[in-house]
Every structure is written in C-alpha cells, then in structure tokens.
C-alpha cells in the first residue's frame, strides 16, 4: 500500500529540518563562492561593456552553485536502444562537472528510467519491419507541413486509428507532444475563455494556456471542492471588470501525474464538469497505453465514457515507442484546429517512419496484428508495476502514487541524497532518474522509477536487491521495517476501482 498523495502528507519534522538545513548549507557555500568571484572575477564569465548580463542572477546562481555539483546524474548518454537493458556511456570530469570526457567504457544497466511502458523500444519484428518499409517507401522525413505535402498515408492512418482507439470522432497528430499542447490550447480556449488548471500540470500545458488570450485560474491538485468553488464563482462573477459571462470554461488535468505516480480521479472531475456544463481536457501523455484493461488510458481505468471528456490529448513517446502527439475530440473542433494551428499549418509533419511506428504499435495493442503481444504487454506492465511497488513499500521506502501506475516515485527528501542514490545505483548497474526542485517541491526530492512491460521478473528482483542495498547506504528507509502482511495486501482503493 503506497501513500495516497491526497492523504495527509505530513513530512516528519526531523526530515524537513535536516533537508532545509542541507539547502541552507549549500546556499551558504554558494554565496561565499559568489563573494570570492566578486573579488576575483572570472574572465570567462564577464559581460561585454554596454550590454546587460546574459543570464539573470538567481537563474545562474542555482545552476552554477547547486546544480553543477551534481550534474553528472542527468544527461547520461547511452549507446543502445532505450529498452529494459541499456548501455550507459561512462563519463568523467576533471573540472567539477563543467565538462565531461567519455572514457570509452559502457556500463550495462537495468533501465528503470525510460518511458517504455509497453516495451516497444525492444523492436518487435512486426513493428520494425513496417517502419523500415516506410522509410524505403517515403524517405526519412516529409520536409513539408501537413497542410501542404506532408500528409502522408501512414499519418492519415495514424489519425484514424488514434481516434478509434481513444473513442473520439476525430484526431489531429502533431510532430511533437509538447508542441501539441502549446499550439492547440490557445485555439481550444481562446479569447473570453477561462482555463482552470491543476497546479501540478506539465510545462507544455502551462505554455499552451499562457500562449493564448484565455485567463487562467489554478486549483490545488486533487482538491475537488476547491475546483467546484472556483467553477461556481467564475460562472456567477463572469470575466474580470466587464462581468460578461465566460464563453467557455475549460478544466485541464492529466491522466497520470508523472512526479507523483498518481492516476487522476477522473469520475469526480467529470461529475463537476457535467454539473456546471464546463469543458474538460485530459492530457494522457503517461496514461495512454499504460493503464486500462485494453490500454485505453485513464477513461477506461476509471470507467468514464470518453464522450464525457471533451478533448483527449496524448503522446506516442511513452507507450508506443515513437514521437509526436495527438488531440482527439469532436469533428468540429478538430477541423478548426487543423485549419489554424501552427503545428499543422507550418510545422513539418510527423515523419512517415515515426507515424508508422505508432500505427504498428497501435495495431499490436488492439490485437490487429493477429498476435496476443499487445494483451501480454498490457498485463505485464500492470503486474510488473504492482510487484515493484510492493517490493519498494516492503523495503520501507516512502512511495507515492497508485498501485496500477507504472510510474513509481520514492522519496529522498534531502538534496544530497539525489546524487548519492543515483551514483550508487549506477555503480551497481541500475539506471535511475532522480528529480528535485523545481520539478518537485523544494524538500521533496525523489527517485522516479518507470516500469516497462519489457522488464522480466528477474530484472525487477535484481533491481529491488540493488535498491535495498543503496537505500541502506543512503538512509531512505523512512517507513522503517514493514511486516510482511500489509505490503502484499491489496489496497481497498484498488478493490474499489476494479
């Protein structure tokens, strides 16, 4: 049973005190070094006369004095495909992480970091052959936008199949997931509209919301009462100053919040949206393909009719091993977007090979390739996620999120534990992702495991053994010793949703 994020997240006093103390020491050291630099300025970083400094003071302080010390934990290059096992290229630094040199050695690791939920990075032959044929047939890329000559046959098939898969009338595919949100949201919620956004929403949703003329209000994650109050107040109050009614109110949430590993309680939000007649946008970047009995995402998982969600957005990066994003909605909305969004008018269309990868992956998931590969992948990931999460809970780590989510964050709290955990795991052949401020709250640094259908039981058992060893060294067994029974019992929440 992992912690429900919406429950009391009281962080023990000792942990928060020592974490703040850790930051305090780091910042003090940083400031002392800044003062030295004022006295002995570095030629490399001086600004030419007459110009303002290129970077603002605080941005630069955080980067140089905090981030650079532990920079080796991120951007680790690999020289294999991002499958269940990867080869990490070893790097060393002679100048405290300012520059890196490759040693030429490759470290084989179990990969608990890549978004390879259904294991398509393993290159199943059905998909690989189709992709290679499409490169031979269409070339490497289209070099043209969808509105001109970039609308290739695989791209058309992808739009049709995506709409069918998610249960909407029509879909529009854009070559990058981030750009899908940032180029379509300004049109979906235009002038005179209000966006009510979850405070934990992804940067692309924030960029898209700010990119248009709509006003934005934010509600605390999972605080549905606050959401309802904001909706009610916005309706009777109307637009600021003029008090004319809002033309549209759009609620934006995600299917799975990847930093919390949590699956949104969609039925509650749909209830609110139906009661007041608002619109709902769900970003299923992490949930499509990864949850639900047939991989159809959060609507299937929460037994919500896709017709009740106005716009379903998702990406092909995580569960389909490709790149790009889609929005699926009514024909009217998609037609409007197709004619006006930069992602379809000006941007180069999704390359035919990457469209084909997504098409073939969808066919496998839907069982249209004639095999049960898709079914197996969906059941594998559910089982793997449950097994690994239970294993972590048993070790006494503080684990967030829902049992069915393949994204499993475990708390480290202290900033120094991030590099410690990451480096110790790397030494033992386990590739993990650690995240801290600003992606997470200041004192809640965490390690985020991403489970794949491509992981075997042996992989996960080995990984758990490594995590056990490292968690003892780094001292993150905050929940103490867990008796066997409670770790393997299914949570009451799980029973309710199934």
């Amino acid at each position: 049973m992992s912690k429900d994020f919406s429950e009391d997240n009281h962080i023990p006093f000792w942990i928060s005190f020592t974490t703040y103390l850790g930051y305090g020491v780091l910042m003090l050291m940083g400031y002392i070094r800044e003062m030295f630099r004022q006295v002995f300025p570095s030629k490399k970083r001086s600004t030419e006369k007459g110009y303002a400094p290129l970077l603002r003071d605080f941005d630069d302080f955080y980067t140089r004095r905090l981030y650079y010390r532990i920079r080796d934990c991120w951007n680790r290059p690999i020289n294999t495909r991002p499958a269940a096992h990867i080869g990490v290229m070893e790097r060393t630094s002679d100048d405290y992480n300012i520059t890196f040199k490759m040693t030429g050695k490759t470290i084989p690791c179990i990969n608990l970091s890549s978004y390879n939920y259904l294991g398509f990075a393993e290159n199943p032959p059905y998909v690989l052959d189709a992709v290679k044929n499409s490169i031979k047939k269409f070339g490497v890329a289209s070099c043209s936008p969808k509105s001109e000559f970039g609308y290739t046959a695989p791209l058309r098939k992808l739009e049709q199949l995506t709409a069918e898969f998610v249960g909407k009338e029509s879909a529009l595919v854009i070559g990058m997931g981030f750009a899908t949100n940032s180029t379509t949201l300004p049109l979906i919620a235009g002038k005179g509209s209000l966006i009510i956004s979850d405070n934990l929403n992804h940067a692309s949703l924030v960029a898209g919301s700010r990119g248009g003329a709509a006003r934005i209000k934010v509600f605390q994650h999972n605080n549905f009462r606050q959401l309802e109050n904001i909706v009610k107040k916005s309706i009777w109050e109307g637009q600021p100053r003029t008090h004319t009614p809002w033309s549209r109110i759009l609620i934006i949430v995600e299917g799975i919040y990847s930093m919390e590993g949590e699956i949104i309680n969609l039925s509650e939000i749909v209830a609110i949206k139906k009661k007041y007649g608002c619109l709902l946008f769900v970003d299923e970047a992490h949930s499509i393909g990864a949850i639900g009995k047939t991989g159809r995402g959060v609507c299937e998982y929460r037994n919500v009719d896709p017709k009740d969600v106005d716009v379903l957005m998702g990406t092909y990066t995580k569960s389909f091993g490709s790149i790009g994003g889609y929005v699926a909605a009514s024909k009217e909305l998609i037609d409007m977007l197709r004619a006006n969004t930069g992602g379809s008018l000006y941007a180069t269309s999704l390359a035919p090979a990457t469209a084909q990868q997504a098409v073939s992956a969808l066919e496998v998931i839907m069982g249209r390739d004639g095999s049960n590969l898709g079914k197996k992948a969906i059941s594998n990931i559910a089982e793997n996620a449950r097994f690994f999460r239970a294993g972590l809970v048993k070790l006494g780590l503080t684990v967030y999120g829902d049992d069915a989510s393949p994204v499993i964050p475990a708390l480290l709290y202290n900033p120094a534990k991030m590099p410690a955990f990451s480096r110790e795991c790397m030494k033992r052949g386990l590739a993990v992702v650690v995240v801290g401020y600003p992606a997470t709250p200041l004192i809640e640094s965490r390690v985020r495991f991403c489970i794949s259908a491509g992981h075997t039981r042996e992989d996960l058992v080995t990984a758990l053994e490594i995590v056990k060893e490292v968690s003892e060294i780094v001292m993150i067994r905050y929940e103490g010793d867990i008796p066997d029974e409670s770790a393997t019992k299914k949570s009451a929440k799980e029973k309710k949703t199934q």
Partner: protein
Amino acid sequence: MASTTTSFTREVWNLLVSNPNDILDWLHKEVTGNPVHVTVEVLCLVFIFYMWGMKPHKRHAIPPGEEPTREEKDELIRNWKCAAYDKHTLSEFEVEGEKEMVVVGYEGNKIDVEGVGLCKDFSTFNHLGFATHDKVIKNSLEAVDHYGVGSCGPRGFYGTIQPHLVLEEQLKKCYGTQAAIIYSFQYNTLASIIPAFAGRSDIIVADKGINMGISNGVFLSRSKLHWYDNNDYSQLEEHLKSIAAKQGANPTRRWIVTEGTFRNTGEITDLKKLIELKKRYKFRLMLDDTYSMGVLGKTGLGICEENGIPTSEVDVYVGGMDTVLGSIGGFCVGSNTIVDHQRLSSVGYCFSASLPPFSAVASSTALEIMSESSSSIATLRKNCLTARLCLSKSGLSFTNSEKSAIFHITFPASSSLSRPAQEETLSKIVADLLSKGIAVTRSKYSLSEPFPPKPSIRLTMSAAFTESEVRESMTTICETVKSAMAK
C-alpha cells in the same frame, strides 16, 4: 540544543513566579536606564499585534454590497451555457472545398499524390534530395535496427543517445562555434529559446516578417516588443536608437529577432547591416536561418557562410534539420553560455522527448554529404537563376532576393480582388498545376497570425531537376498563374 531551551524556560519561569518585586525593579531599571530602547521595543510589539489583528485584505472583484445574493448566484450558475464548438467556419485564409493532399510515395524528384499521380516536387523543402538519398536511407535503416525509433525520454533522463552527441559535435565543428544543442521539433526551437533569455523587463525588436513559430516565442517571453517592417533597416535603426538612448547606462537584455531567409516572403535579410547595427547600439541578435540552409553559403551552411561572417557573431543562431537536411528537428549553435543555459531553461528541450536517434543519424549523414560536395548546391543555384529568369519574363510579381530558393508569387499590387477571392484563385492554380504534374503550394495562414502576409503561391527550387526540366515546369507554372490572375 533542547536542553538549553528547557533550562532557559525554567529560569524565566522561576523569575516570574518567585519574586514579583524583582521583576518590577528590573522593569524600572530598564525604563529609566534605556528609555529609547524600551520605546523601540514597545513600538515593535504594538506593530506586531496590529498586523496580527488586521483582517487579510480580500480583493473583491465585485465590491461587497453589490455581490449577488445566493439565489441570484444559483440562477446565474443554472443559466450559464458553455459555448459549443460549432461547425468550423472558414477564415479569410481558407478556401471552400480545398482538398487535403495525401502523399503515398515518392520516385526520384517526384512525389506520388493520391488521386493525382506522380508530380514534380516544387513544394517541399527537400532542396538537395537528402530525405530520399540512398546513403541517408541506408544509415537510417541501420540506426532503426540498432536504436529503435523513439528515444523514450527527455535528454536529461537517459534520452541522450550517442547519435545526438555525434550530431551536436558535428554541428559545432561545421559552424565553428563553442557548442551546439539539438531540438526534436524545428517549429518551436526558437520559440523555446527566446523565453529562456528574455523576460518581462527585457526588450525584443522583431521583424514583422517572422513566421508564426517565432512570433509565438516572442509573445511568450512577455518582453516589451517593438516591430519593424520586413527588412526595413531604417525603421529598425530608429527603434534601436530610441531604446538605447532611453536605457542609457542601464541596459536590460535587448534582442533583435529575425530570420535569415523569410519563409513567408522568401526574402533574404542583410546580415552585414544587422551585425553593424547590433554592434553600434549594443543589442544581441537571434537569427533563425532554417530556410537558408542548403541554399546560401558555399557548403550550404547558411547566411553567415554566404557573407563570410563567423557564425559566432550571431548570439543565438538557429537552424533546422527538417528542410534541406531531410530529417526532423532543429538546432542552435553559439557560445558555451548560450547553449548550456538552454539545457536547463529551454522548455522545449528539457520537458520534451529527444530526437529519434535515426533522425539524428540521417541529419549527420546529410550534413556530411552536403559539406563534402558543393556541386549540388551549385546546381540548385543555377536552377534558381533559371526560375528567376522565367518569372521575370512573365511579368509576375515574385520574391525579390536573388539568391533565395523560395519563390512567393503574389498578385500584382493593382489587383482589386478581396483576400478570399485571391485565395480562391490561388487554390484553383494549385489544383490546375497538380493535374499537369507539378506540385506547388498555396501559402496557408492561421487566423492567429499577428501580421498575415499577402496571399501567394509558394514554390521551392530543388537541385534534383535538370535545367530543361526547370525551364519547362516554370513555363507551365507562369502560364497557368498568369491566365488565372488575368480572369
């Protein structure tokens, strides 16, 4: 620490409880001995109590007293209706009944359009044919075998795959800069970079001709914006002069944002003039040179190479891999400071999946071939000249810049047709040319465009055609356009 706190508390408690007279004596001593100190302390205490007692200031959208009653609120909520998404009504940039072209294959320099057949490609940006080049395809197939398709993560989380590093190293060397960074989508490359270097207190002077991808970035930065007409350097200088004079000795970050070759007009910018102006008035320059690549410069590296100016003179130089390099994605080259900052602060880089490895391999191969053989660039130049000659003879209005491989053919200034009527004529021209086996495109714009350009037919030149093929096709194009515009 806990023990000292306890003992202190105990002492104070003892003092208070044991002998009240001692406290009064102490107070008397303080007040007579340090009156100023006591006054200040008392004032502080009063202030603290005042702040504590103050009710939190509630900002009322509607002043209290004018707020609706509960029944009125309920009625407003009951009656409110969200606007539905109605059947799409065409904007002035769209044409009724215009079909979407579906491409079902390619053959040499022709694209196979569904329902039409093979058409000469005068529309895509595949100027040198790298998207369908044998060696590029071979290397891409090998890369797909080895790396799969997607990178399954952002660069920070094991999404950095060896071909990315190879490509960045290659770009750095080609352009002679300190560092290079690649993005997975060209359209929002500069749009991600701008907000990382310009904020609310900064200034951007932008050319009105920039495409919507860049203008989105300029608006997102929330900087103070100044616009100047396309390639109008005197207007640009006026802006720079007045801003520099106003800011004096306390400059904020100031940027000029423009393109090397403008996608929307095909015109080429005067880089020498830009560099001179930016140095004189102490501005920095952001240049998106995507549409000059493969066209300008001896080895196709763009406008800097063409003018013999080192790329490092441009502070933020952006290019694309989805045009001449025949792949997808964008890149930025510059100093270590510029590039390193983007790795943490550019949203399109940090929070987005990295480029598929096979696309990086394709770009690397294309870049290598392009830098080694300048003969195809020379062929492209010749074809552009041939095209220009045909267009001049026909008397049509088209792009002025001589070296551009993008031609926008517009209506003459004297045309009295409305925009929708012009767009409809252009649409008919495109359909007509398609039936004759020539693929060109009508420039399409969004109703979100800040400065929509004039309606135009856009054709891009390719090195894949022989001189006679170009002449023949251009004659057909010119005749078709002329007769349609004359109606």
